[in-house]
């Protein structure tokens, strides 16, 4: 049987579970006794094992199985969680991630058996002698059970908990069915079929009992049939259809349970109950997720090569509904226009205007909704950082903590995909170069635990991401000396350079100030790559730093990539668009108010001195004759804290524009033009990139 069709689901869900596992391990490290966390980890390992087994990834299954064993012992109180154990668990996590990466890229888990890790895990288990016997006993019991059941039809035995659950269902007037499913004899991956049956059942209600246990079914420890007790609001037919929609199912027997069954005294009832509870918790989890339609789209694999799975965005069904509604409104608006054009001249003008306003409203909403579908919270990228910083902390032997805020800030999907690497790089930079060693921090009277803060927020049309640390800051003299040494700048140049210009040197290719090239960073392929990547996304990056106090990298990214609000201006007889996001104000400036500083034109605007940029000169626009006006129209643009005034001839107005690329043929000097747009009359207007002008 081909399981490739489940590959996408498998990858998605594995990612979720791994993320879960990682989060929980982080907590476990600080609270080793937390029972909820331990349960959660056990559950994640268990689900991973089941899924890997179903897909035939034996190595992955083996590893998760070992993890599960360890945690089952921890849960029973036979083993205590130690820091050492958490470390090894993190290694397991890395190994699992490696498997997953392999699977994403090659649809195969690779050949790494991770023997050392498994040995270490085994070490924990062997430390406790009695545990083996209990788990063996349980396994034996469960293996025996199916045969016993076979002979006596399908008399299902119930525990006290299950009887209670059935009673509860009766009170709620829900149907309880006892279902026996026979899998086709030729079916190769029985577990996969069973898994699908469970999946479709869980969409309709709750499976409160299964025989053999869910775990055994997942491990394919069953013959050709299995039985479940199922609580649902759906009718018998619906349930039957759902099961029959799974292929390779030979027969389904279904009986309604109308009476409360007797409680079967069970040897290890307590344990059984625990497991069932878990299953229910799991079922609840999935149903809750479906209700809220939580958007946890997969994060693109970082490794190279073409992944075998397509990129996808999980979209909340509500968002699609809104889109659908808007499209229907669009059709109505179109019909309105058609009928308006058929009416009398007198009514025509009126009708048209009305319909055009309507159309405008619909398209604006439509745009907004489509953008929202493409938007994802930055959390999808940042959630893997806490673990990364933890690993760095171990590797670099520095104490540090990462604080992330504003992770619900949303960004376009394309940006989210690309921003992970640069951010990771900046974090590494902060951890490696930024933060000092513990001793130095103590000497300087700082908290021995270094702090890295990642903060994201929306600022107008931009999203700002800051990576801040309270470390050493950038040693400007050090950078200067290094640059002279490397021949990047001459000593004379260094004399005249401002601190900012020197910091900018860090973003030049192959410039690393680290004295020791470490595994973490300092190979000299650093900040320039970060900068290029961010600029490719239409953003920019700047640094603020203070020696011995820390540095802050500020990334500014456009919120959307395709459609922006822009101010249309005219210079000579050419029209240009300027993104509204970068415009601060528009001023009327008297020509006599222009002053000269270092023979450059500036104006003094409410206390701040702003350089004036004559767009006609920069854009080589031929002016027809002298303009006699005494006032200049100046558009004040800002980038971070820097400002500049652009002189334009005429303002046309605000407009929503669709950004189109100029293509790769034309190289426009200094990247003054970031793209083009098509105006209502079909003409092309160019978009000025305010960021390069400031």
């Amino acid at each position: 049987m081909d399981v490739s069709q489940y590959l996408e689901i498998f990858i998605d869900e594995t990612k979720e579970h791994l993320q879960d596992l990682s989060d929980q391990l982080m907590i476990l490290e600080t609270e080793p006794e937390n029972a909820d966390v331990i349960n959660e980890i056990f559950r994640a390992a268990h689900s991973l094992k089941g899924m890997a087994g179903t897909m035939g990834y034996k190595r992955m299954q083996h590893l998760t199985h070992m993890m599960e064993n360890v945690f089952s012992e921890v849960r029973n109180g036979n083993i205590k969680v130690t820091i050492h154990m958490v470390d090894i668990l993190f290694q397991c996590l890395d190994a699992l991630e490696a498997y997953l990466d392999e699977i994403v890229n090659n649809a195969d888990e690779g050949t790494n058996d991770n023997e050392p890790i498994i040995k270490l895990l085994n070490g924990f288990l062997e430390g406790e002698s009695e545990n083996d016997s209990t788990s063996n006993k349980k396994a034996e019991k469960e293996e025996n059970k199916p045969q016993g059941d076979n002979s006596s039809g399908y008399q299902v035995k119930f525990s006290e908990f299950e009887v209670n659950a059935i009673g509860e269902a009766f009170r709620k007037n829900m149907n309880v069915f006892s279902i026996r499913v026979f899998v086709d004899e030729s079916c190769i991956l029985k577990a996969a079929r069973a898994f699908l049956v469970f999946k479709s059942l869980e969409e309709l209600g709750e499976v409160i009992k299964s025989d053999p246990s869910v775990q055994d079914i997942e491990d394919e420890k069953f013959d050709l049939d299995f039985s479940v007790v199922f609580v649902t609001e759906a009718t018998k037919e619906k349930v039957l259809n759902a099961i029959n929609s799974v292929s390779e199912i030979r027969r389904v027997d279904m009986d309604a349970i109308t009476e409360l069954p007797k409680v079967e005294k069970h040897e290890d009832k307590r344990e059984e109950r625990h497991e069932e509870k878990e299953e229910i918790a799991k079922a609840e989890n999935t149903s809750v997720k479906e209700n809220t339609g939580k958007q946890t789209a997969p994060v693109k694999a970082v490794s190279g090569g073409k992944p075998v799975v397509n990129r996808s965005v999980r979209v909340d069904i509500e968002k699609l509904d809104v889109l659908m509604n808007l499209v229907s409104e669009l059709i109505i608006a179109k019909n309105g226009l058609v009928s308006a054009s058929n009416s009398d001249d007198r009514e025509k003008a009126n009708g048209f205007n009305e319909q055009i306003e309507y159309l405008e409203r619909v398209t604006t909403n439509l745009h907004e909704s489509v953008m929202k579908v493409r938007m994802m919270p930055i959390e999808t990228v940042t959630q893997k950082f806490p673990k990364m910083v933890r690993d760095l902390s171990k590797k670099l032997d520095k104490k540090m903590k990462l604080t992330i805020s504003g992770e619900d800030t949303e960004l376009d999907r394309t940006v989210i995909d690309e921003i992970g690497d640069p951010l990771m790089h900046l974090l590494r930079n902060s951890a490696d170069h930024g933060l000092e060693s513990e001793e130095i921090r103590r000497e300087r009277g700082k908290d021995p635990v270094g702090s890295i803060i990642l903060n994201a927020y929306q600022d107008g049309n931009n999203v700002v991401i800051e990576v801040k640390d309270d470390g050493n800051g950038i040693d400007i003299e050090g950078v200067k000396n290094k640059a002279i040494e490397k021949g990047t700048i001459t000593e004379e140049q260094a004399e005249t350079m401002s601190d900012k210009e020197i910091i900018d040197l860090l973003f030049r290719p192959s410039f690393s100030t680290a004295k020791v090239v470490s595994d973490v960073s300092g190979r000299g392929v650093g900040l320039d790559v970060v900068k290029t990547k961010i600029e490719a996304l239409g953003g920019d990056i700047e640094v603020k730093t203070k020696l011995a106090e820390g540095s802050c990298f500020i990334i500014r990214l456009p919120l959307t990539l395709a459609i922006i609000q822009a101010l249309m201006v005219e210079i000579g007889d050419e029209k240009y668009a300027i993104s509204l996001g970068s415009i601060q104000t528009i001023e009327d400036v008297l020509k006599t108010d222009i002053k000269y500083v270092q023979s450059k034109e500036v104006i003094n605007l409410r206390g701040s001195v702003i350089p004036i940029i004559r767009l006609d000169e920069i854009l080589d626009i031929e002016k027809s004759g002298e303009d006699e006006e005494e006032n200049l129209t100046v558009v004040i643009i800002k980038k971070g804290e820097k400002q500049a005034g652009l002189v334009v001839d005429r303002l046309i107005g605000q407009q929503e524009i669709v950004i189109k690329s100029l293509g790769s043929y034309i190289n426009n000097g200094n990247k003054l033009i970031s793209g083009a747009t098509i105006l209502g009359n079909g003409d092309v207007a160019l978009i000025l990139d305010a960021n390069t002008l400031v």
Partner: protein
Amino acid sequence: MEDNMIEVQSTQYIVVDVGIEQYGIDIKYVDNIVRMQKITRVPKAQNYFMGVINLRGEIVPVMSIRRKFGLEDDVFTDKTRIIILKPEQHEAIGIIVDNVKEVVSLESSNIEKIQSGRDEKSRYINAVGKNQDNLISLLNVNGVIDDVN
């Protein structure tokens, strides 16, 4: 005899006027021929780019063959056309021609490859075609475009 049988392979060319010369453009590169329309200048672009046009909602750069070949500037008339070229694996690009004359089929026996010459212009011509009494310079489309990149 046999050789001749194999050689009857012919290619279609669009024949255009640029200045006093006739150029042939392999039809497989031609996406469209449009009338002269408003070209938006792009500041700081290479001088042979006239600017960009709106071709059915797409932005297409337009190049002046005359400027590229170092001829005198284009004079736009109602015969001026923009030929939109769409080479494989490249974006579309427009070139301005004075006039579009006809489409001819040239058999390979009538096409004479020429060595890449010394002057600027001959780098963009890879062969000369004979059509009855006329000589047509066959444009090396990829050459023209690669040069831009």
